[in-house]
């Protein structure tokens, strides 16, 4: 029998014509959207989206623009990494935005500095003992919160078998309540300098990219990743094949919770404050990034690379609108259209492929 590198005999197989990775389409959508902004800018505004036309600056690229494109999506992007794993297993996590809110409040309460401009911190939550703690303390407290939220989500999904939509909706409502209750709706502010450094400048981007690479490797090369795809593809079959589905799900939701908590730490550090309303709707943005990146909400299909590209599309859209000075009233209408358009493009190319 003809045994080749890619299979065992039978039909003719032509590796050159094999299916392209789905991420290619997402990348194409990103390029098209970016070019569209560049073109519209050049034609209608005499200005460039990506390049510098201001005289006082030497750089060719408008680095500030490129930086802000990634920077503004990197915090939601961190959440989206966790959400990607959850969706791969066929689940969904609606709680991440609220977990960000609650974690930010709690972590920030242990990251406060005693003296602000010479007077005692006006937003102090705890007494003296909680002031000017080493930066590791609030970080660990935050991660612990996220872990707890994730474990609770995971417990309900995995062991009581309620739909993930409900388990995480419950957590969403609960965590938002918690963040309001924590300081009766008051913001928690004035962190120590070392805490403020976590989210300073391009740090969020560094954290996001590092984690993205890490989870890209984890999903593609470890047993954990393989089981994510397997469970999302056919949970029943995975169980029958001896995967401990419940334990795996617990782990997935725990990781998602910790990533949301990490995002909360970075976010509150970047903004130098924590607020009960922080992270509202982040869960939807994170899910949208993953879906634009080609993940299937049925589970089993998608990748971290896709999610990162989906996040970049978001970033370009937001920056592009400000660049075009598009009226805020129209922005959302156009944004809605672009989101749909990006996915239509993706879908259309995929269908063409399978028809070919």
């Amino acid at each position, binding site marked *: 029998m003809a045994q080749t590198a890619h299979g065992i005999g039978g039909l003719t197989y032509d590796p050159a014509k094999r299916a392209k990775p789905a991420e290619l389409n997402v990348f194409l959508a990103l390029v098209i959207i970016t070019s569209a902004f560049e073109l519209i800018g050049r034609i209608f505004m005499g200005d460039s989206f990506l390049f510098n036309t201001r005289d006082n600056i030497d750089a060719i690229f408008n680095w500030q623009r490129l930086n*802000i494109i990634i920077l503004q999506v990197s915090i939601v992007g961190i959440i989206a990494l966790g959400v990607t794993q959850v969706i791969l297993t066929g689940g969904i996590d609606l709680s991440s935005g609220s977990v960000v809110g609650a974690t930010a409040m709690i972590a920030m309460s242990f990251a406060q500095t005693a003296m602000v401009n010479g007077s005692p911190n006006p937003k102090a939550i705890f007494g003296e003992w909680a002031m000017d703690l080493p930066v590791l303390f609030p970080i660990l407290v935050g991660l612990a919160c996220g872990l707890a939220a994730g474990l609770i989500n995971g417990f309900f999904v995995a062991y009581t078998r309620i739909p993930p939509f409900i388990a995480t909706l419950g957590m969403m409502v609960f965590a938002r309540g918690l963040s309001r209750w924590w300081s009766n709706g008051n913001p928690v502010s004035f962190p120590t300098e070392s805490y403020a450094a976590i989210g300073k400048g391009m740090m969020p981007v560094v954290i996001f990219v590092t984690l993205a690479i890490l989870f890209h490797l984890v999903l593609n090369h470890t047993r954990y990743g393989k089981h994510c795809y397997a469970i999302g593809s056919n949970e029943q079959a995975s169980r029958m094949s001896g995967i401990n589905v419940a334990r795996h799900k617990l782990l997935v939701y725990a990781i998602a919770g910790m990533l949301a908590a990490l995002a909360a730490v970075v976010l509150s550090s970047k903004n130098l404050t924590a607020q009960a309303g922080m992270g509202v709707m982040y869960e939807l943005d994170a899910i949208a990034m993953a879906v634009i990146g080609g993940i299937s909400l049925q589970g089993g299909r998608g990748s971290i690379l896709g999610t990162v590209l989906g996040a970049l599309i978001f970033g370009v859209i937001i920056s592009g609108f400000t660049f075009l000075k598009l009226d805020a009233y129209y922005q959302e209408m156009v944004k809605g259209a672009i989101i749909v358009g990006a996915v239509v493009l993706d879908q259309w190319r995929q269908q063409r492929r399978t028809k070919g």
Partner: protein
Amino acid sequence: DGIGVSMALFDDNFLTVLRNGIQAHADANGLSVQIEDAQNDVAKQLDQINNFIASGVDAIIVNPVDTSATQAMSDAAAAAGIPLVYVNRQPINVDTLPDNQAFVASNEVESGTLETIEVCRLFKEQGKTEANVYVMMGELSNQAAVQRTADIHDVMAAGTCAVTLNIIDEQTANWSRDQAQSLMTNWLSSGTAFDGVIANNDEMAIGAIQAMKAAGLDMGTIVVGGVDATQDALAAMQAGDLDATVFQNAAGQGAGALDAAVKLAKGEAVEQKVYIPFELVTPANIDNYLSKN
């Protein structure tokens, strides 16, 4: 070129008036402004400011989502050398603002205080010494809601209320007329007698009024207070349903902020702190406000 504006929230009626004030003043002076909606998200607001900086605007106006998150914004604008003006809400770093930054704001403490004292006065006028009230709060994570609710308690504690106030229950209706209707109906179904409703804004006050009217209560005897002096509220006041509201000169604040931003952009000096007071609106002086919002 142009001026970038980041508003805390577009869906808020009061902020809409403020925003329209900026827009109208800009149009009148031939200025180009770009107004963004931060959707109550501090992080989004900071990103918007960074986007403005990347686009090279002349000046930035910020209506802060969170007044304690302004330090990061001031830092970003100062680093880029772009002037910044805060509007409507007093930033926490007000005393350490760089030279090319300013603010035009109101003191939220006044709104709830004016409202509560007027409601107390009306109870006194009805000949009561003690009154039972329900309190409707805005979104719990919103500082105006937290502050206006705290104002009620402060007035009670400070003894500046003309009668003894008893709060029967204090719940949130999230600024919304619809939720306020449901909340009020729920309260009514418990059958507890009460004398008035103090709401954090007019929308909720109107919702409460609609629910009470549906249940056949006499609005002449029940005192209802709100904040914002919206058109709907003024109409309700004219109809004799709403008893007190508080006006904040939104359009004036917007125009003032724009002027300050333009001056700073030209390198001129401006007053760094401008307080615009709240004004109490009652049936007696309502005519002064009918065309203001």
